[in-house]
């Protein structure tokens, strides 16, 4: 492992270079030496050193600081340790200001140097692991990981590409389970903030006061139990993106606070008196019709317009049924791998069943249904019977378990139920009932149903 972290020692004294190199080699490192700054820079061009030990005083040619600056230009990730003698501590401090990670005064204790090298390499290892994980995340949320052949979804994906590198706020609308967070991640990881944090806050999951301290952080003593300063999600997301899920559920006070962040990009921590400035891109999501909420006075209109700079509306799965086979195959492949089950695919009959289902829980529901089927499946392929319980849930028994009532009452109940399921959305309720909107309005009037 240590061989992956080559070390360079630059010193004009041969004995210094060689003895230092020998000592580090005993520890398993690959060590190169250079007898002057110029040679050191040349070596750094050829090898990606993790650590460069550079002697501060090298008479003639480049001195230690010049060598360090040149090496850091070529290898910005290399950690430079400046070696100095007692008399030049001031210069060493100067070296630190110029970007040396550490300086050591020679001769130093073997333990000191051993710990210094171990500490720097531990940090390097974490940094490189972090970079690998970020790359992995990036790959995971690239656009073509959103599976679709639906033209509307393809338009949406093209839009996410276009807006990825802007700082404009994005509002994603869509029913639960349509993939709002996935689209938000796609926007983040396709843009120039990809290597910065992507922070998710589920606004509906927390009470007003909790959400406030979650978003903005708090100062010591802001409330009982606030034992120290804590950064909020906005600060944690600095430079990156904050994803505010279920934004339609936040209180009036938080709406006002959020509006201020959107306008000024600054805020106060709870209990704080100093403003905190952040550079954060906001992506909000909701399953509510915010325009209507704003009209009804339940959501601040000014905040709605601030959020709705770029709107992305995700269609429910039942409006992109052509994606069901693609998504189903994808989930079968992924989940069977995860669960270690050998399932080759889905039979045509089972697929038909899936296509016909209405999927009120959208893609998330489809994923859960397939996982359940894979868990209970004993063949190499998912068959119709593996989804038999799904059919039952489509038409709940109690919905048809109605005592003798006038036909009109049955119709009235069906309309009320459809409106409830569609959260009062007349267009969707009429589509679900198989009648057009004007007919539904007539019936609403006739049955005196208010919605």
């Amino acid at each position, binding site marked *: 492992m*240590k061989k992956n972290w080559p070390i360079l020692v630059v010193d004009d*004294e041969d*004995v*210094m270079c*060689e*003895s*230092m190199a*020998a*000592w580090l*080699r*005993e*520890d*398993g490192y690959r060590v190169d030496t250079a007898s002057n700054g110029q040679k050191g820079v040349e070596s750094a061009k050829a090898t990606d050193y993790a650590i460069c030990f550079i002697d501060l005083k090298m008479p003639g040619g480049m001195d230690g600081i010049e060598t360090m600056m040149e090496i850091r230009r070529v290898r910005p990730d290399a950690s430079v340790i400046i*070696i100095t003698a007692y008399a030049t501590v001031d210069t060493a401090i100067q070296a630190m200001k110029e970007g040396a990670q550490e300086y050591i005064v*020679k*001769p*130093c*204790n*073997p*333990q000191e*140097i*051993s710990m210094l090298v171990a500490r720097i390499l531990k940090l390097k290892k974490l940094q490189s692991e972090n970079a690998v994980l970020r790359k992995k995340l990036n790959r995971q949320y690239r656009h073509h990981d959103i599976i679709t052949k639906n033209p509307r979804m393809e338009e949406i994906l093209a839009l996410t590409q276009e807006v990825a590198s802007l700082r404009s706020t994005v509002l994603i609308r869509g029913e639960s389970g349509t993939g709002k967070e996935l689209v938000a991640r796609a926007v983040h990881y396709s843009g120039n903030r990809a290597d910065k944090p992507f922070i998710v806050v589920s606004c509906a999951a927390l009470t007003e006061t909790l959400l406030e301290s979650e978003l903005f952080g708090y100062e010591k003593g802001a409330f009982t139990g606030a034992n120290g300063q804590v950064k909020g999600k906005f600060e944690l997301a600095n430079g990156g993106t904050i994803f505010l899920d279920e934004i339609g559920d936040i209180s009036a006070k938080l709406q006002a606070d959020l509006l201020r962040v959107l306008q000024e990009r600054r805020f106060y921590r709870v209990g704080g008196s100093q403003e905190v400035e952040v550079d954060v891109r906001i992506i909000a999501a909701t399953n509510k019709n915010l325009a209507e909420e704003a009209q009804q006075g339940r959501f601040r209109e000014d905040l709605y317009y601030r959020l709705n700079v770029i709107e992305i509306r995700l269609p429910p799965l039942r409006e992109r049924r052509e994606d069901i086979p693609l998504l189903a195959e994808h989930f079968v492949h992924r989940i069977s791998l995860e669960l270690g089950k050998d399932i080759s695919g889905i039979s045509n009959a089972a697929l038909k069943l899936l296509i016909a289902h209405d999927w009120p829980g959208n893609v998330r529901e489809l994923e859960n249904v397939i996982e359940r089927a894979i868990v209970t499946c004993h063949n190499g392929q998912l068959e119709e019977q593996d989804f038999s319980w799904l059919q039952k849930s489509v038409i709940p028994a109690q919905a048809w378990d109605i005592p003798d009532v006038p036909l009109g009452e049955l119709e009235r109940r069906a309309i009320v139920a459809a409106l409830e399921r569609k959260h009062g959305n007349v267009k969707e309720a009429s589509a679900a009932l198989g009648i057009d909107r004007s007919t539904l309005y007539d019936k609403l009037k006739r049955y005196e149903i208010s919605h």
Partner: protein
Amino acid sequence: MKALYLVAIGNVPDKAWEWIEDAAANWFPLPVRRMPGFPIPEHAFDAKRGQYQSVEFMKLLAQQAPRGAYRVLGITDVDLAIPMLSFLFGQAQFDGQVAVVSLRRLRQEFYGLPPEEAVLRERTVKEVLHEMGHTFGLVHCPDSKCVMSLATHIELVDTKEEQYCARCGLHLVERFTSWNGGV
């Protein structure tokens, strides 16, 4: 013929040779020979530090190595250092021919304590095995009990056992058995 040559640089107590020869015979399949000693190379003395530059001792050993010597281990009783480090218990050419061990900081007296021969024996054997291990291509071992673990102060030398761990031992066995012509 492949052999391990032992050599004194300056005065070294007679007992030390018994300890070192025993340890070498236990671990290395090499004949052990004694060479006539060298006087302390005074040009290696760093008056400012009151120590000797170890690199000069290594150079001396490499220059004076008998023809065909497989390994040369120098033993000294003076305090060794390199420009970068304030002291060394010993030094080796990694995967190379020569190594040197200083007894100075292995002695209890160095730390203001009464001399203890048993302690000196144990520490000497550990340092000899450690530096010789480097000449056979062993790097520092993460197992603090292993004689190849890095000791940056005397307490860490005392933490080690007088033996290689299974992994380092295996490396040595592979090394010895892969020698062309055997030993």
